[in-house]
Structure formats: C-alpha cells, structure tokens
C-alpha cells in the first residue's frame, strides 16, 4: 500500500479491477439466477425466457414448498441439528479445552499427543459407521449430533486461547472463592466470546450443510433439509404435481430453485454480518508458522 497518492491508472489497475468485478459476478450470479427461477411462472421457464430477472413474477413456488410436510419437517430437523449440535459441541470443546489448558495436570502430555495424532489418522468411513451402528445410534438424532461434537482443530484453538488468559485473573477469582467450574463459567467463557463465536459459527455452518451423515444414519423423517434437497435433485423425491411430465419437470424447476434458495438462505443472509468472525478464526489457527 503506497502512502503517497499515485493517481496514474496503469494497465495493471484496469486488468486487476476487471478481474475482480468478474470474480464478484461469478460468485453472485448463480444465486441471482436461482432466485429468478424461483420467482418465475412455469410457462416462462418452459419457454426459456428466464435469465437473471424473473418473468411472470409470482410466489407460488415458495407457497408450494411450505405446504410439503416433508420440506417443513426437514427444515425443522436442520434447525434442530444445527442448534443442538453447535451447543453440544461448544460445551464439550470448552470444558475439554479448559482442562487441557492447564499444563500441570497429570497425563496432559499424553492426551495432547492423542489429540494431535488423531488429526492425522482418522478411523475411516466404514469403521466409524460400524461403531455408530453397534452403539445403536443409527436412526436416532444422536447419530447426527454426537460423533462430530469435538473437532480437534477447534479444540487446539481454544486450548491456546485459554492459555493466553492471564493467570492473575484466575487467581483473583480463586481468592474470591470460585472453584474451577465457577471460573470456567463466570470468568473464562465471558472472556472468550470472540473465539467461541468463531468456533460456534464454523460448527453451525458444518451442521447446517451436513447431508451425508443424514444419508447413512437417519430415517426419512429425520432427514435434514440438505438431504431433502439432494433427494429432489437426483429424483429420489418427487415434488410438485402436474398433469403431464413436462408440467411436472417445469413446476419442479421453480420449486427446486425455491428449495435451493430457502435451504441456504440463512447462510446467505447472515453471512455479511458474521463474516468477520470467520476470518478472525482462520488467522487465529493460522497455518503459517
């Protein structure tokens, strides 16, 4: 960054700015297209009139999907998995990280090695699946929530964060008569809200977007909305009803687009507000040595 103002615009500037505009468009246009499709009339879609602006604007597609009990239930499932899963994950990770932040505990080194080791060597799909099914967790909501409650990555970030809390603060709390549970709850957690918010958001996004675990562990009425969307896209689930097959596919198109938009809407809406937390987290656990 130059401190002196150079007003001369070079070829490099023009090229770079064009590329950046292109990048922005490429990132946004797919969603605009989906939005336009979801707000257009089926006949316009069938006649290939829709590009980025809705033709025959109507909200029928959205009204329709909210009458599908499967969609409604799937959306509710997703909301549940995301909130419960994130909460469980934050609690487990915080408690574990706080205990592990104390280097004087016996066995601390071994457990630390176990944590790091497991980041490189993971069990694999089949052994994990067999474990979860032999624990009788398949077909229950716990299969979605429990196995991914602790991410080693987040754990290590939190451990380092907790270690950076000045010891005087804890000592003052101890003098005030708090025990370690109290310290965690009343002192450490409030001080750690940025880190917790970042980890929480990453975890929430993970749960919101997760579909594969639903595929292999859950029954149909427990599916999250992303799995519901996937089933629509590959034709396992039919949506819409129409007299002829052409009607069925074009109604399905505006409906499909509506499902796409609604399923990822919270992320798109909340993203601009929350995105600074995502970046902060990335540089906290930075790869660069």
């Amino acid at each position: 960054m130059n401190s002196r103002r150079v007003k001369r615009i070079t070829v490099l500037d023009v090229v770079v700015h064009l590329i950046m505009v292109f990048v922005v468009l490429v990132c946004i246009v797919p969603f605009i297209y989906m939005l336009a499709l979801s707000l257009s009339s089926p006949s316009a879609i069938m006649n290939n009139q829709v590009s980025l602006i809705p033709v025959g604007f109507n909200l029928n597609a959205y009204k329709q999907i909210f009458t599908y009990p499967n969609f409604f239930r799937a959306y509710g499932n997703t909301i549940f998995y995301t909130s419960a899963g994130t909460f469980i994950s934050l609690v487990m990770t915080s408690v574990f990280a706080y205990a592990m932040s104390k280097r004087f505990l016996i066995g601390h080194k071994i457990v630390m090695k176990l944590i790091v080791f497991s980041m490189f060597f993971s069990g694999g799909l089949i052994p994990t699946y067999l474990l979860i099914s032999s624990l009788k967790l398949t077909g229950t909501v716990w299969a979605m929530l429990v196995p991914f409650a602790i991410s080693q990555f987040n754990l290590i970030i939190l451990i380092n964060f907790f270690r950076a809390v000045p010891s005087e603060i804890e000592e003052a709390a101890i003098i005030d008569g708090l025990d370690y549970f109290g310290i965690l709850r009343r002192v450490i957690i409030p001080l750690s809200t940025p880190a917790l918010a970042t980890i929480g958001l990453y975890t929430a996004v993970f749960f919101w977007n997760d579909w594969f675990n639903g595929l292999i562990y859950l029954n149909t009425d427990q599916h999250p909305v992303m799995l519901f969307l996937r089933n629509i896209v590959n034709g396992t689930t039919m949506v819409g009803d129409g007299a002829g097959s052409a009607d069925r596919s074009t109604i399905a198109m505006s409906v499909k687009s509506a499902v796409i938009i609604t399923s990822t809407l919270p992320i798109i809406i909340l993203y601009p507000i929350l995105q600074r937390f995502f970046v902060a987290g990335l540089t906290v656990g930075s790869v660069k040595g």
Partner: protein
Amino acid sequence: MTGTSVHPKEKKAASGAPSSPLRRHFRRYWQLYVMMLIPLAYFLLFKYVPLFGNILAFRRFRPGMGPFGTDWVGFAYFERFMQDPAFWRAFRNTLVLSISNIAINFPIPIIFALLLNEVRNGWFRKFVQTVSYMPRFISTVVVIAILGELLSPSSGLINRILVNMFGIDPIYFMNEPAYFRPIYILSETWQFTGWTAIIYLAAITGINRELFEAADIDGATRLQKIRYVTIPSIMSTIMVMLILNVGSLLSLGFEKVLLMYTPSNAMVSDIIDTLVYRTGLVSQNYSYATAIGLFSGVIGVILVSATNWISRKSTGESIY
C-alpha cells in the same frame, strides 16, 4: 501459570499427618479432572475406536457379531481388491482428479491473492474479498444443485447460450464423462479460491514494508515487486500449503463426487472413497471396503510424511 501457589477452597489440614503430594494435587484439582472425563471418553470412543476398527480389514465380518469381525483372514481382502479392476479404475481416477485439481486450484488462490493485493481502493478490495469467500459456506448439495440447473441440457443457462448464440447442440454436461473432471475442478475453484486466498493475503500483509521501499528505491515496477519481493516472502506459506495439499492427495471431496456420480460418468467419477462407500455401505461388504479404506489411509500417511520430509530437506519448511 497458576497452580502451585493458589488453589480453590483449600481444606485446612486439620490433622498433623502430612498428605502425599499426589493426594494434595488431586484434592486441589479434582474438578479439572472431572471436566476432562466425559470429553476424553467421548474422544477416545469416537476418534480412536474406529482406528482400531480398521482391524476389520483382516477379519471376516458377521452381522450381529460386533464391528471388529470374527475370524482372521489375513490379507485375503487386500488380495481381492488388488485384483479388482474396479479398484484400479477408482485408484487411477483418484490420482488423475486429485493431481489435476492441485495443478489448477493450488496456483489460482495465490494469483488471486497477489492480484487482490494490488487493488488500491481499500473498500473495493474488502468488498471483493468478502464476496469471494462466501461460496465456501454454501453446502455442496446446493452447489451441485445450482450447477445442475445451470448446465441442464433442456433449460440451463449455459446450453441456451450455446444453442442460441453458437448453434451448438445442447450438451448434457453433468452426465458426460468428458466434463466430469472440469466441472469438479471448476466448482472447487468457485467454492474455495476466495477462502484459501485469505491465508496468502494474511502472509502478504505480514511482509516487512521496508522491503518494498527498498524495491521502490531500486526503481522496481509493480510487477517486479510482486516477482522479487512478494512471492519470495510468502514462499514459506506456499510450501506449507503445498505439503498439506499433496498430503491429502487421496482424500478428495468425496461428498461432491458422490453427488455428481451418475452411471454414465462412472468410469471417471468413481474414486477410492466412493468405491469404499458403495462396496461398504451400499453392498455391505464391510471387510472388503475397510481393507480398501485402510490401504488408502496408509498411502495418505506416507504421502504426508514424504512431502514433509522432502520439503524440510529442500526448503527448510515442514509441518512436523
């Protein structure tokens, strides 16, 4: 750190007999150990038991007899998949897709970061950056669903442009084997370029300003500054990222490939992980699939160690 001098609720030693240091330790810190119990148990259960579960690759699985199998069969399953052309096809597909993906998607975030750094308007730069890593938070299902619509042979935007402007017949992109790899790679570009670039941008902002000022004094152009100052300064970051990428060569975006898989493009779209999924979870050949997975995992470990070692010897950068 605290611990030795201050402790909560110390019970006054009523009797004169001194308690052992160990007992004192536990009396002070028992709460911390209790805190560790449940998470540690969970951790061992869900992260380490599956590791041992890989032993199933050497034993026969019988339904209802537990996840570790019953009688030993040695390397029988390994021999079986080594002779299975489906395995070698998946192996080849994994390597080709992974190497092509790295070839394209490793340099692009670096270039993007370098270019973005050249944008002079701070507001615009921040705006582009923020928009560019939004796709990373979109579910793969949504990405593939949108692609399906965009590339649809009957109504997709791309095909409409092709037909109307160029008079080409519509192409069923998502079904054609020839387009599978480009679509996979380019969708990875779309999803992760902005996000990966953050790491490089962070490295670039960490470069000492004096280096640039010295280059200015020497009369360097902006492009020359990029080539002789910026890139060498972030080389350590680049190498670490390269190690991580090559190390995970065999573990591709399994979910995305699974979503893109159709019987028509199976010959290029079947990768090791989808093969494991199909033979294991769909066909329920658990031992066979575990053997393949174990084989793939071991190769992955070797890859990480090898690239780490090579990098340490040649450039001095390593992860461990």
